[in-house]
């Protein structure tokens, strides 16, 4: 409807113990980069629109190390930087922002500490708060939301969760399908479409991208941004190629403007 606003291509860095790892159904195996800064420098050259950096370490004691990584990464990141993982109190949220994050991802807090979401939204503005939805299909076939790094299932369906997040003050939704994570079959388009239709917030689609076409599918399902992790780390010039594909598919994306070095 407003073609001048571009769709965003987002690279996601999944961090465990401060190192960038590959994620498959939320099991975090292969270390891809020892240093997140190295990944950022590559993405900077390759026309990325935004970076999301998530701490998935199972242990809360990883928070200090993660804040350090955010600080190092932000020195080399000249696109919006979103950070999340273990944000359970105002002090840590403030610390991540002062370390250079522009936006914060909240997940478990939406269930366990809704006041925190409200407070952070009021203090920093809606545009700073991204509510993350980790969706998983139950044995009965219904899609439900999981929290605590995918370890705890809730009774909520993703649409309810998105609406609750919006009511608490989130300005954006980060939708991830645990089942599709690393499965190479694209996003969970059915759930993604339902969420995009249910809330008036920008939605970032994540989880399952294996081809550039998967990115386009996510945009066509209604999301404002298409995010991926694994695929961007393994292909040379990957984000440039992805952008090229999306542009050819008629999706408005930011091109690297011609300008002096």
């Amino acid at each position, binding site marked *: *409807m*407003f073609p*001048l*606003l*571009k769709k*965003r291509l987002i690279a996601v860095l999944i961090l465990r113990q401060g190192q960038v790892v590959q994620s498959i159904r939320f099991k975090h195996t292969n270390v891809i980069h020892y240093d997140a800064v190295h990944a950022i420098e590559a993405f*900077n050259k390759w026309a990325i*629109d935004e970076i999301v950096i998530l701490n998935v370490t199972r242990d809360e004691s990883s928070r200090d190390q993660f804040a350090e990584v955010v600080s190092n990464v*932000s*020195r080399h*990141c*000249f*696109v*919006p930087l979103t950070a999340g993982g273990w944000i359970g109190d105002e002090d840590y949220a403030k610390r991540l922002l*002062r*370390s*250079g994050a*522009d936006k914060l991802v909240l997940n478990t807090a939406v269930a366990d500490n809704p006041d925190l979401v409200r407070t952070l939204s009021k203090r920093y*503005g*809606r*545009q700073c708060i991204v509510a993350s939805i980790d969706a998983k299909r139950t044995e009965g076939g219904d899609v439900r939301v999981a929290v605590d790094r995918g370890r705890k299932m809730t009774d909520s369906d993703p649409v309810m969760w998105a609406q609750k997040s919006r009511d608490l003050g989130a*300005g*954006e939704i980060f939708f991830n399908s645990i089942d599709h994570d690393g499965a190479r079959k694209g996003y969970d388009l059915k759930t993604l479409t339902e969420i995009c239709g249910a809330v*008036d*917030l*920008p939605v970032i689609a994540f989880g399952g991208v294996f081809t550039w076409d998967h990115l386009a599918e996510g945009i066509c399902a209604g999301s*404002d941004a298409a995010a991926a992790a694994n695929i961007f780390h393994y292909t040379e010039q990957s984000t440039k190629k992805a952008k090229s594909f999306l542009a050819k598919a008629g999706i408005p994306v*930011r*091109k*690297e*403007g*011609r*300008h*002096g070095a």
Partner: protein
Amino acid sequence: MTNSSVAVIDYGMGNIRSVLNALEEVGAGGVLVDNPEYLGSFEKAILPGVGAFQEAMENLNESGMTEALNAHVSRGNQLLGVCLGMQLICLDSEENGFHEGLGYLNAHVVSFPQVAGLKVPHMGWNAIEFRQGHAVFSDIETGSDVYFVHSYNVQCADESNVLATSNYGVPFVSIAASGNVLGMQFHPEKSQGVGLHLLRNFVALK
């Protein structure tokens, strides 16, 4: 003794770390200035800002930074207002009431129209269209995309102050200039190559 670095005004609101990182990246020294007395030794300053207009003006007024900025501008020194900073250099804003700004730019800050499908804040990459030439555009193409996050926009009363416009539901001013005072509604420090280049050009302005 003037300092050739760029003063980055720290008045408690704003992503000063990002601005400092960007200045470092383009080879300029950025110095945080939270004490109005120290602004006098700088020839260039950046006024960043994220948050609410009223609170920002209160902070600037109460700390004495407004006076220091007035003096900086009347000496003919350069000032770049970024995001909320661009709004603060205007005459006034209608955000949450009616509040007076610093008044360096003959412009008003107004809300976006309430139109179905127009999500506010305006958040994302959008194009800047140049309306006139300026040294800050050196080596940059019109139509380049930059990163915006804002809920209110600037409308200039004097067209000669309009350097670039963008479109989001309505046309609005994305870059303005009045003498040595410039404003950029988007975040150049978050707009990668194009943004860094604009900052580099600002630093190079004579």
